[in-house]
Structures are given as structure tokens and as C-alpha cells.
């Protein structure tokens, strides 16, 4: 017992969720932090003087984006390929997150990183490589599985993690999920942004807005189904800020990801043992940023009605559900396994 307590003090266990849009970290010392997944370096020495830092992260980087070479280095939960600096940006982002977790000097760090359910081996290796420079030992697990572990939903449940790059599904049925129990689809949060952007361009061709503004509209006002509220946002037209009604466009854009989610959900439930299908249907959990879309739980519930009664719930803390689960898992994994990694 004494040894165990000593071990816990010596080691900082962290769970990391590297998201396309936001990344979060949960640490065994109680720290929980998140950051937008942006990394920026000043474009030149004048920019460096203006921003006053050699590297900027998250919203700070976004605010100063005109002075920066800005990177959003993750795509569908893995390091975006093709641009060399993306790898460097991911490393910096991880270093920053771990620094936010506040490890003590010389404290050992063991980390578990959540990756998309269908991440390929090379992507997993790339993530491990990026993290390994900052921690003493690292493992990767499927992100929805980490969420299920954290929520203690290891038996008869379906976790749907709606992120920016992917929607990950993980069926838990009292055993370790294998490839058939996990699936990822690509129509996720970023797809909503694209749709909303194109709808708004079509409706308000003279108004000046960019993708970042559209993303902010989504994060503040997203909803599906019926709503009595009218959504009005301020967009400049010829330099003057004017109110624009975006209610219908917002609904259309948010609902555009639902057919694929509903189809995959029913497909995954249908291939499951019929005896346990009812239990799973009554335990559908939505997590990730997408679970914050107003009315999404009821919409999915209604759409699945034809398959019988079901219960769809959203987690309370979608931003940290994967990192919390990964951290718990890191704490539970025996030391002998960590030592051999």
C-alpha cells in the first residue's frame, strides 16, 4: 500500500485528447486544461516583436494569425500529412499541454493519448513519437474507448464521439472492443463549418465573413430540429456591421452530419446480438464538441424510433471525457507495463 502511494506521488499520469479543433489534457494531480489546436510562429522579426513570443498557441495564435505562420496540425485526430512543420507543431502543442498540466521538477510522466478508432499504425507511431519527447512512457488507445473507460460504461453501450474531424463510434459489450466494434466517419464538425460557410455565401453574397467567424457562429448557436429562437449574427457589409438571420442555414448545416451518424448507429446496433440490442439502444452516449449541438440527442433518439425505444444522452463534460478516461486508464495500468514500453 505504501509502495503504491509512493508510486502515485512519483509519477504524473496524464490523459491527452488531441483533437482536430481542440486538444485537452487531464492529469492525476487534478489539473484539467484545454487549448485550441492551433500553433503559430511569427512570420518575421517584425512579427516576432509585435507578438512578443517565439511561438503562440490556441486562441492567442488565432487572434494574432496575421503575424503568424499558423498551423492546425491535426486532421481527423492524427498528424496532418504533407507539411513537414505539422509534426513540429504537434510536438510543440503536446509540450505546451504537458507544461499546462504542471508536473513537478524531475517527476516521471506516463501518458495515454486518445487516437481515432480507425487510426493506422503509422499514424499511431507518429503520435507516439511526437509525445515521447516530453514523457517517460506513452501508450495510445482508441479515443471513444478511453471515454467509455472513464465513464465506466464498459458493458452494453455505444459511445459516439463527435469531433471536428471525425465522428468515432465504439460499441462496448463487456469485452475489449475490436475493429468491428469501432468505426469512424468523416462528416463531423468541420463538415458543418464548410456547409454553413457555403450556405451563408449563397444567402449573403455581399457580406464579409471568413471560416473562423463561421466556426464561432456554429460554436455559439448550433442546433438541430425545431427552434423558436431566431439566430442573428453581426457581419460587416461594406464596412458596416449588420445583423443577419442565419437560423435556417445553421439548422441545415448542423443537420447535414446527422444522416451518416444515424445510419452508422443503426448499422452498428443491427449487427449486434439481438438479445443485447435493447440494452445498447438504451445506453447511447454522445461526447465530443458535437454533442453540444442543441437538440442533437433528441434528434437522434427520434430518428432511431423505428428501431424501438432508445435513450440517447450527452456527457456532462464533452471536452474532457476522452482525456479524463485516458488519465484514469493510465493510472490503472500496472507499473510493469509502463516500464517495458
Amino acid at each position, binding site marked *: 500500500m505504501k509502495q503504491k502511494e509512493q508510486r502515485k506521488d512519483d509519477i504524473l499520469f496524464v490523459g491527452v485528447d488531441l483533437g482536430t479543433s481542440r486538444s485537452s489534457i487531464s492529469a492525476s494531480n487534478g489539473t484539467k486544461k484545454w487549448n485550441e489546436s492551433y500553433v503559430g510562429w511569427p512570420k518575421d522579426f517584425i512579427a516576432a516583436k509585435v507578438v512578443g513570443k517565439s511561438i503562440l498557441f490556441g486562441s492567442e495564435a488565432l487572434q494574432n494569425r496575421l503575424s503568424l505562420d499558423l498551423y492546425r496540425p491535426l486532421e481527423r485526430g492524427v498528424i496532418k500529412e*504533407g507539411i*513537414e512543420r505539422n509534426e513540429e507543431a504537434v510536438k510543440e502543442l503536446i509540450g505546451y499541454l504537458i507544461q499546462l498540466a504542471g508536473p513537478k521538477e524531475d517527476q516521471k510522466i506516463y501518458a495515454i493519448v486518445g487516437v481515432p478508432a*480507425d487510426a*493506422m*499504425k*503509422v499514424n*499511431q*507511431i*507518429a503520435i*507516439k*513519437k511526437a509525445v*515521447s519527447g516530453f514523457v517517460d512512457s506513452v*501508450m*495510445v*488507445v482508441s479515443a471513444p474507448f478511453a471515454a467509455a*473507460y472513464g465513464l465506466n460504461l*464498459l458493458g452494453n453501450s455505444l459511445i459516439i464521439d463527435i469531433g471536428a474531424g471525425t465522428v468515432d463510434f465504439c460499441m462496448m459489450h*463487456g*469485452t*475489449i472492443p475490436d*475493429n468491428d466494434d469501432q468505426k469512424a466517419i468523416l462528416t463531423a464538425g468541420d463538415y458543418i463549418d464548410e456547409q454553413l460557410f457555403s450556405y451563408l455565401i449563397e444567402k449573403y453574397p455581399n457580406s464579409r465573413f471568413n471560416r473562423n467567424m463561421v466556426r464561432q457562429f456554429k460554436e455559439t448557436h448550433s442546433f438541430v430540429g425545431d427552434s423558436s429562437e431566431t439566430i442573428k449574427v453581426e457581419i460587416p457589409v461594406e464596412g458596416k456591421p449588420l445583423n443577419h438571420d442565419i437560423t435556417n442555414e445553421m439548422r441545415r448545416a448542423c443537420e447535414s452530419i446527422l444522416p451518416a451518424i444515424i445510419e452508422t448507429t443503426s448499422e452498428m446496433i443491427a449487427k449486434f446480438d439481438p438479445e443485447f440490442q435493447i440494452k445498447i439502444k438504451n445506453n447511447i452516449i454522445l461526447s465530443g464538441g458535437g454533442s453540444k449541438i442543441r437538440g442533437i440527442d433528441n434528434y437522434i433518439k427520434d430518428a432511431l424510433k423505428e428501431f424501438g425505444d432508445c435513450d440517447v444522452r450527452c456527457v456532462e463534460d464533452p471536452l474532457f471525457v476522452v482525456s479524463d478516461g485516458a488519465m484514469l*486508464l493510465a493510472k*490503472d*495500468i*500496472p507499473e*510493469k*507495463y509502463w516500464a*517495458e*514500453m
Partner: protein
Amino acid sequence: MEILKYLRKDSRFRQKIHKKIFLDNLRIMGKQPYQTLKKKPITYKGISPILLTLIIILLGYTVYHNYITLQGEKTLVSSVIESNNSEVHSQIQAPHVQRDSLKFLSPMVNPEISIAKVFGLKVKRIMIDPGHGGSDPGTSGIIGTKEKNVALDIAKRLKSRLERYNYEVIMTRQEDEAVSLQKRVELANSSMADLFISIHLNYLPTRPANIIETYYFGLSFDEEVLKLAEKENTDSPYGHSEFKKILEKVNSTMKYEESYRLADSIQRSLFTNIKRIDSEVMDFGIKRAPFVVLLGVEMPSVLVEVSCLSNKVEELRLNTWNYREKIAHYIEIGILNYLRNKGALTHEAKRTEEG
């Protein structure tokens, strides 16, 4: 009591999860569990099932070896006798997976020891050959997708992927242009490439199936393979004497065995990964074939039939960049696995692979 039972069960389940995660992560890094899982001392009782399994494998191997030797002789004879019976053979045969054939067909070649590995030969330059081009479109799909375009796109993607590991990657064509087979061979030989990978797409007129197969340099007595070779060799300009010289190179054991290994690695990676996307894709394995482009080049060479344009669903998939990128990625994995096994992975590539 019930609660205690539940807790014990839950604890056992969690232990299984932890072990699985640990093993999965070791597998990702290509490692084997070292000490953690080695606990039990070896006893006679414990070892007896292993001994029994070994005996069964040994017996099975002997029987299989005899069977293959007989079959090889039978195929050789029957292919000569039945060479005119083309109607029957025009139907595609059942998957012909030939992974272990090297052991039986070439007693000179020991698949465990590679000559290239023994001499520490490194790979620095890779030549990618997108099949067809220009006035020669190769095969075409139902909605008009042309083999030459898909092959070129995949080749370009593969090039940029391999360049990340500091390999020098050269292509036989960068654009939609006609390059003769002789020119391709000359380009590969004059550039002193260490590997040659030709990218093609298949077409099955009689079946809607999607198949993946990889050819490596060598002679074949399979009629279907010979027909395909005839099709791919249509613009071959070689005369008889030149061709004889080329054929003499068939005995180059190192090229033969390295081509076999490369073909095997690419086929494994491509099929295993595509299977996750298309559960009905068929593994037609690796085969020897006398393609001019494979025979002429002096380095280990393979021709990969990465997909099948006669399958409509597959054709639609091939029209998305994402799928073509995936194919390039799987070929890349196959090449890197081959290089790693032969100890010829560059420093940069090794670091990336090992994390």
C-alpha cells in the same frame, strides 16, 4: 457477497483491458513483450502441448512439401498439354496465393537469409513506374476512368510519401505521356535505381470482383499470367537476340529473391488494408511473370496491380483522392516493411517507424 463477486469480475476484466492495451502498443512499435509476460517456469507438463504442435507442424510440412513438388510437376506438364484449351482457361482461376512458393520452387534460395542482407546492400534510389500513359490509356472502367491517370496519381502520391524518408524517388513519367517499355527499362537502369515498382490496374472482363495481385520478375507457366504479360508487353521493341540476353538475367538470384520479398511485402500490406475498406476484395497473391519491364531492369522489381477497374464500386472509389492516397500509403507501408526486414531502412525512415 454479490457485490464482491461483481468487483472481482470487474477487476479481472480491467486487468485484461490493461494487458491488451499494453500488447497492442508493443505491437505498434514492432516489439515483443520482454519480461512482463514471462512468468511461468517451463515444465514438462507445460511444454508437452508445444511439442505435440511442433510434431504436427513437422508432419504437415513434409506432406505439403511432397504435395507441392508433385503439383509443380503436374502443372508444368498440363500447361504444355492444355495450352490450346483457351476457352476453359479464359475464366479467371481461383485465388492463386503463392507466398511460400519460393521455398519449394527455388532450392537455391533460402527465404530466411537474403543475399542483399548478407552483403549489407542499401536502398537509396527508388524508381516508380506508372503504367501506360499518353496514347496508351491502359484499361478503362465503366464510367470512363483510365488506368494511365489513376496509376500516375497513385505513383505521384507514393513518390512524395517515400521522399519523406530521404529516399531519392524517380518516376518513369511525370505526366500523361507515352513512354515505351524499352525507355522505362533504360531509365531505370541508367539511373542506377535500387528498386523498381510498376503501378498498374487490373480488369476482369468475366467477373465483377475486385482483386489485388503483385507480380515479380520471373518466368511463369500460368496461362492467365502469360496472357496478361502479353497484354502488358504489347509495345515491346526487343528483338530475339536482345530478349535472349535479358532472359539470361533471370538467373540473377539476388534480384529474384529480393523481388519476391518486395512483392510479398507490398501485396500483404495492400490486401490487408484494402480488406478493411472492401471486405470482398480478393487476394490473388504474388506471382512470377515475364513482363518485359520487370525482366529488363537490373534491380529488384515488382508490378503491382493495385486495384480492379472492371468493378464499378471500386472504380467510383478510385475517383476519390482519398482512396488513391490510401493505396499509395499501403504500398508505402509494404515497401518500408520490406526495407526494414532487409535492414536497409534509411536512418530517417527508421526513426519514423520506431517513433
